[in-house]
């Protein structure tokens, strides 16, 4: 397990229980996430990864338990409450399919949260939004287009730019590389890592992409049996032999190829990118 003596956890989940129509999704789940790193949550489909993230964001109410973001309780909050609004401006979420507003252009999508929260002049907001899009590497000719006219990789970049619009401390990414070709996925991975370092972000990522896990994740959280089975570095998790499913995840037919590749890259000391 990872221990952090001096740091305060930025996200803390205590004794979380979730039950949907008699089906237990989380039973007594405990989790502490520390700032300034990339954390990946993995687990089999339907094990409650997305539900956990949605609960942390306050989009879903847990049956019982407590969730803290930066030492402030997030569960049972009211969206009309100004305090909740301020708290939510410190966290960002990028949804799996982007969830961009189709009636707004790309730049308006990014301007939307900034306009909502600040009283900067229109021109300033426009320029800040441009900057965010530029930081995510979206080509300039796409700024005034509409989301439905963009490719999958571009959409993810816009969604990321909108997530970063208010410079949150924590961002949640739900399958950022799903549906992208290998090159776009690599680009997006690099971008996330670069932004994480530059903006000192805490990135919590849900992904099935083994390459992303090896490339950019600092820590791994493995969900199973309705709780956190393992929270460790990627290397340790991959060499874990106690949890059968996790061992298969990294050493099965798919997992092994990626693992061998990344370990060989590391021992050679070269950067494969």
């Amino acid at each position: 397990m990872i221990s952090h003596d001096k740091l305060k956890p930025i996200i803390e989940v205590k004794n979380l229980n979730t039950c949907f129509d008699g089906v237990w999704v989380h039973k007594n789940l405990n989790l502490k996430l520390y700032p300034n790193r990339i954390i990946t949550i993995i687990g089999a489909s339907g094990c409650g990864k997305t539900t956990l993230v949605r609960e942390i964001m306050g989009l879903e109410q847990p049956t019982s338990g407590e969730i803290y973001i930066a030492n402030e309780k997030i569960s049972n909050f009211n969206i009309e409450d100004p305090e909740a609004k301020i708290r939510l401006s410190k966290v960002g979420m990028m949804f799996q399919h982007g969830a961009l507003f189709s009636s707004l252009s790309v730049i308006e999508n990014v301007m939307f949260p900034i306009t909502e929260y600040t009283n900067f002049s229109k021109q300033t907001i426009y320029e800040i939004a441009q900057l965010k899009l530029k930081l995510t590497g979206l080509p300039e000719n796409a700024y005034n287009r509409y989301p439905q006219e963009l490719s999958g990789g571009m959409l993810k970049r816009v969604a990321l730019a909108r997530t970063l619009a208010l410079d949150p401390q924590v961002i949640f990414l739900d399958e950022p590389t799903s549906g992208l070709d290998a090159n776009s996925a690599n680009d997006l991975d690099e971008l996330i890592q670069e932004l994480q370092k530059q903006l000192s972000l805490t990135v919590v990522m849900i992904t099935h992409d083994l390459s992303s896990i090896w490339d950019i994740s600092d820590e791994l959280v493995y969900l199973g049996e309705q709780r956190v089975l393992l929270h460790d570095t990627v290397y340790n998790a991959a060499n874990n032999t106690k949890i059968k499913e996790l061992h298969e995840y990294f050493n099965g037919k798919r997992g092994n190829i990626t693992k061998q590749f990344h370990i060989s890259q590391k021992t050679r000391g070269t950067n494969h990118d």
Partner: protein
Amino acid sequence: MYKNIVNHEFDNANIAKLTLDKKDNTIYLNGAWSWDNIDENEIQNLISTLHIPTITVNGLEIKKLDTTGAYFIHKIVMQLTANNVATQLNLNTDDQKLFNRVSKNLIVLEKLQEQTKQYNTTSNNIKLSTQFAPAINLITFLGQICISFSKTIKSPLSLDWKEVSRTLFNAGFKGLFVVLLLNFLIGTTLAYEMAPQFTQYGANIYIINFLGISMLKEVSPLLTAIMIAGRTGSSITAEIGTMKIQEEVDAIKTMGISPIQRLVLPKVLGIVIATPLLTGLAGIVGMMGGAIIANRNLGITYNFFITRTQTNVSIYNFTDGLIKSVAFGLSIAFVSCFCGFMVQGNSNSIGIQTTRSVVLSILMIVFLDAVFAIIFLQLGI
């Protein structure tokens, strides 16, 4: 600065400040330079009044810097440089890294903006052709329908007759009750309000002539068509629009099937059959409503009402109404299908096009009604 948020205790120590020290020509930046702590006006006020040859911007005391903060520092530096003030910026190593990256991107964007400004001034006249795009689209659409229709006449079995019957059921049978109710009520209302006028002149029996012409020739075709435009036309637009957004129309095209043939023609045919059927029934029901009021208020028996209708109301009133309703049906089907195809991958667009479909259909109906009135008058029927 946060907007519209009251009752929140802000940490005053964190608010981004810039103070000018005139002795050593330095602007000191303090506090947290993040979006929630920056006051844009304060920066503008200080910078715009500054007129000294050299200045140092000291940001070593900054507690926290985010991209928005870096944006404003970049703006400060750029504006000072533009005012011919030689500026030097001092930042911590970490902040400097973020600032450099933000600044680099902003310079690229600013250059680009200047280029697009120049481009916009030279390329204003290109846009003229796009003004006529809807008219060109409409003509193309009508042409495509004509081609598809001529093909269908050659091989009638290629048409999706199931879809025709579905449209007929939806537009005709499902709308039957509401259309008949509407016309019945209008028949009674017209008769009720006109009855005192007729009794004044002792011309009670002319209520039958009045109802015959007004209901059969004008009111029932118009009301029925408007009802169909509102009920069926809007649903067709929404249906085709949704299909277009979900790429179903493209899927049909990739299978080598013409979307006009598969989607539009059955609907046109269904509506064109349904409208005169409904109109005919609606006219008769409207007359029945009138007959009840004539019987109650003017003492005209039902038998007399029928014989008087047979002798004094020309059958042409009825057929005129039916002929008109065919044209109304055609225009409703054309307009609603056309608007459906004009939907462009955007959930907003369906709403806009549905509204446009109903409004355009009703406009077309009233316009055609006027045209027919002139034609029938000239032909003397």
